[in-house]
């Protein structure tokens, strides 16, 4: 059991680390997509099939596409960005911060008396999930729907700008 977990974990973390450090933006996006896939594999290992399904559909399918579009729309020329002054220190600080946070969290995890429950996970059928979503969490579902609508409309408005004859000082 644990072996699979450890393999999935290492793969995901590796992909993520690579995604964060590559200079090429497209590479970063693709590697990150890989890491998302790794997370979906974890969901499968944990028994949350629907969550894995959602993860793949949304993240790997839609969000990566959106990010790709954004990357392509905001390119200036075909060159990648060279590292700027201060990026080294920023990188160092970032690693330090990451390490500190990881350290604190791992320490907390290690000290917590979390009992291992070897029992098999709860079985969640899609049917049950549907019942939950339409039942007790129906309101939340509707709210999330509204949220998504509003967010997407807002995004469209933001991205579209002020119209064709805007006196944008973009030149």
């Amino acid at each position, binding site marked *: 059991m644990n072996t699979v977990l450890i393999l999935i974990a290492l793969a995901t973390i590796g992909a*993520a680390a690579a995604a964060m450090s590559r200079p090429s933006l497209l590479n970063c996006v693709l590697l990150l997509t890989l890491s998302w896939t790794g997370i979906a594999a974890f969901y499968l290992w944990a028994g949350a099939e629907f969550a894995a399904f959602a993860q793949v559909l949304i993240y790997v399918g839609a969000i990566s596409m959106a990010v790709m579009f954004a990357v392509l729309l905001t390119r200036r020329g075909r060159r990648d960005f060279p590292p700027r002054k201060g990026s080294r220190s920023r990188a160092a600080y970032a*690693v330090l911060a990451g390490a500190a946070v990881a350290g604190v969290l791992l320490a907390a995890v290690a000290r917590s008396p979390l009992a291992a429950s070897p029992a098999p996970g709860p079985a969640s059928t899609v049917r049950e999930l549907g019942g939950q979503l339409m039942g007790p969490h129906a309101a939340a579902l509707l709210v999330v729907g509204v949220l998504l609508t509003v967010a997407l409309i807002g995004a469209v408005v933001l991205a579209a700008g002020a119209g064709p004859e805007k006196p944008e000082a973009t030149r």
Partner: protein
Amino acid sequence: MSPLQLCLAFSSALFAVGLAGALARSNSILVLLGIELMLNAANLNLIAFWRFSPHGSPATGVVFVVFAIAVAAAETAVGLALVISIYRHQQDIRLEEATRLKG
């Protein structure tokens, strides 16, 4: 190390990586992606606890995660639209350049 602890360690490491990436990169899109990674790490936590919790209703964890994914998606869309807006203004999506909202 119990499996739960392993899962938690995994999510913590992923979170840390996401944080480091968001802090290190100057490209706004990569910062957003770093934030996405952190959100995913949180989702991992949720599933881990759902898998290894003693009791609970069968689908709560998954429902939680589904909602979290939905919200994250909305947030990503808005964030990317913002990035495009910023690009239109300053021809550059480096986060250090977008400092007009300062005191």
